[in-house]
């Protein structure tokens, strides 16, 4: 039993990252119709931004939590303005290909600068230590990750579902031409959306820095799982991507307890099953 709860909790922590990343992907996809392959690389960039901030500038974790997503968001704005923008008129697949190329560049540059072995990032003093839950020893920092991720996801959901800005976003997802009718400056809106979605990835990166080694490859294996999460959840609803992300983290944890060798493939097996039963995904719209 101890082991089961322990693995479920670890799964929930992983699920928090799935949720944060798939949320960002869903927002970008919704409005820009771009599958942002570089999401994983930008998540890694967020982690490195935090690490570099600490080592070169002495910016503590709490500062990084704000500054690193901003930096990544800015990078996103630059990417959108200079490159992605030129592809909106073309087949959506070009967006995927472009961001794939960007992924190689970003990863290659970090790899060149920092090698592959990764750098440790200390857990902030306030969150060091942990408590014994009886079934496992829960490091305080990991508990913090789950709580903050869920909070950020819910806040994003609230903004999108319940505010005027969110209404524009949703309307734009349905029909971008409609936005113009509202008097919204669509190009700016697209830029900001991409920046925000990418900033979420950067935020996830900062959260991940003290847990995982900060290394150039940290995002690329994660992003493919997140893609599977997105296919399973369907891009239809923001809420769906959050729930699916957390849920699949738990499923992975459960698999690690029941049959560890299948833990890395279980998400894809679920993807196959969902495609058989509900091709549009659990929360997706048939279209």
């Amino acid at each position, binding site marked *: 039993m101890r082991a089961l709860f*322990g693995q479920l909790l*670890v799964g929930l*922590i992983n699920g928090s990252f799935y949720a944060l990343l798939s949320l960002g992907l869903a927002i970008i996809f919704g409005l820009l119709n771009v599958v942002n392959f570089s999401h994983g690389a930008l998540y890694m960039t967020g982690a490195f931004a935090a690490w570099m901030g600490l080592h070169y500038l002495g910016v503590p974790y709490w500062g990084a939590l704000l500054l690193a997503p901003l930096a990544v968001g800015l990078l996103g704005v630059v990417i959108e303005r200079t490159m992605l923008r030129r592809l909106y008129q073309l087949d959506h697949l070009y967006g995927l290909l472009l961001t794939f190329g960007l992924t190689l560049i970003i990863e290659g540059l970090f790899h060149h600068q920092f090698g*592959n*072995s990764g750098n440790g990032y200390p857990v902030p003093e306030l969150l060091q230590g*942990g408590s*014994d839950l009886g079934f*496992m*020893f829960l490091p305080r920092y990991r508990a913090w990750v789950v709580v903050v991720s869920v909070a950020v996801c819910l806040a994003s959901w609230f903004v999108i579902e319940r505010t005027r800005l969110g209404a524009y976003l949703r309307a734009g997802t349905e029909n971008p031409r409609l936005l113009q009718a509202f008097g919204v400056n669509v190009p700016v809106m697209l830029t900001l959306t991409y920046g925000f979605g990418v900033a979420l990835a950067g935020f996830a990166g900062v959260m991940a820095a003290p847990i995982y080694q900060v290394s150039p490859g940290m995002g690329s294996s994660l992003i493919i799982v997140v893609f599977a999460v997105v296919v399973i959840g369907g891009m239809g609803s923001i809420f769906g991507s959050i729930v699916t992300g957390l849920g699949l983290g738990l499923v992975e944890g459960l698999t690690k307890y029941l049959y560890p060798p299948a833990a890395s493939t279980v998400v894809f097996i679920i993807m196959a099953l969902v495609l058989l039963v509900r091709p549009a995904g659990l929360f997706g719209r048939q279209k």
Partner: protein
Amino acid sequence: MNRILRISLVALLALAAAPSRAADPISDNVVKIGVLTDMTGFYSDLSGSGSVLAVKMAVDDFGGKVAGKPIEVVSADHQNKADIASNTARKWFDEGQVDIAVDMVNSGTAMAVMPVAAEKKRITLLSGPATTAITGEKCTPYNIHYTYNNWALANGTGREVVKAGGDSWYFITADYVFGKSLEEDTAAVVKASGGKVLGAVRHPQSSSDFSSYLLQAQASGAKVIGMANAGADTINTIKQAKEFGVTPKQTLAGLLVFISDVNSLGLDIAKGMYLTTAFYWDLDEQTRAWAKRFQNHPDNKKKAMPTMVQAGLYSAVTHYLNAVKAVGTDAADPVIAKMKATPVNDFFSRGGVIGPDGLHRHDMFLVQVKTPAESKYPWDYYKVVKKIPAAEAFPSVEAQKCPLAVKK
């Protein structure tokens, strides 16, 4: 379409400009050493550019020439991928006039290069990899395994930890040749010493999150968690074990730990850990003198002390050059025979002997990591618990199951 064909024809012809293979390996007028290592990956700290430096130092100390011909050093990054290693070696041998390939940290790359080298009759000097199969069932006539192997590591650390009371083990193992064979060897030692093995979990090379593996190890209730992994993987395991409160209750045994790992972990986390090493810079005057030269070499940007891989490589290359000088040719057969016939005597290996299986048997050291209080100066990390004599440190030729050695 013809236009396209013409373009591709031109492209093909352009490729043809690459130098073709020299016909005679003896007379290409240069002794070329290829350092094939992990330049940027998770083993780059323990070998990488430091390995290249060690080889260059060996060549410079030798005078840059052997038998009147210049010695050249080339290096390549195998990125820990067996296919890249094998391709690079093949290209080196076929087109690059490379006479020997050295280092090959990471057993997978070593095992990929060895058959290529044997096929082309080129010598390989392995310092980084650890798998016993290298001089066991997979041995080749042209290969020397120089610095350490899993058997030595497993025996050094495994036996000592069981003796100290750690009699139930659980392994966290890197899921490739090296890890699996290290686990196997250590498990055998543990059982032979009266301990028992409760289980093992495999993780992919260069994992970032060990929490679920540690939870499994924790759930097993074993007294000792054996880390059959290396480099960044070991560092992460140790760190996260502390984070999840595994370490005070269960003991970690590092089966392959380098001084570079201890340096990046810090003594506070690593203190008290037993480990087996082939080299420690602070053993005696000779080691100190060489290590300081290495540390202060202008090419050593990080000013890091040499690891056993790097020290072993220096010694191995020097031994090779001595053999070339002695026989007056760089042809593989006479050189390797000479190397096996001559005992090694330098700061690294005192009277070490290379057996017919290609394994260099020399003294090893069981050391314990000092506490921060015990450490008096930079890189003062180990206290030597015990010197393990060559005969005890390495498996006998008979135990090795190398077909070459059995024939003799």
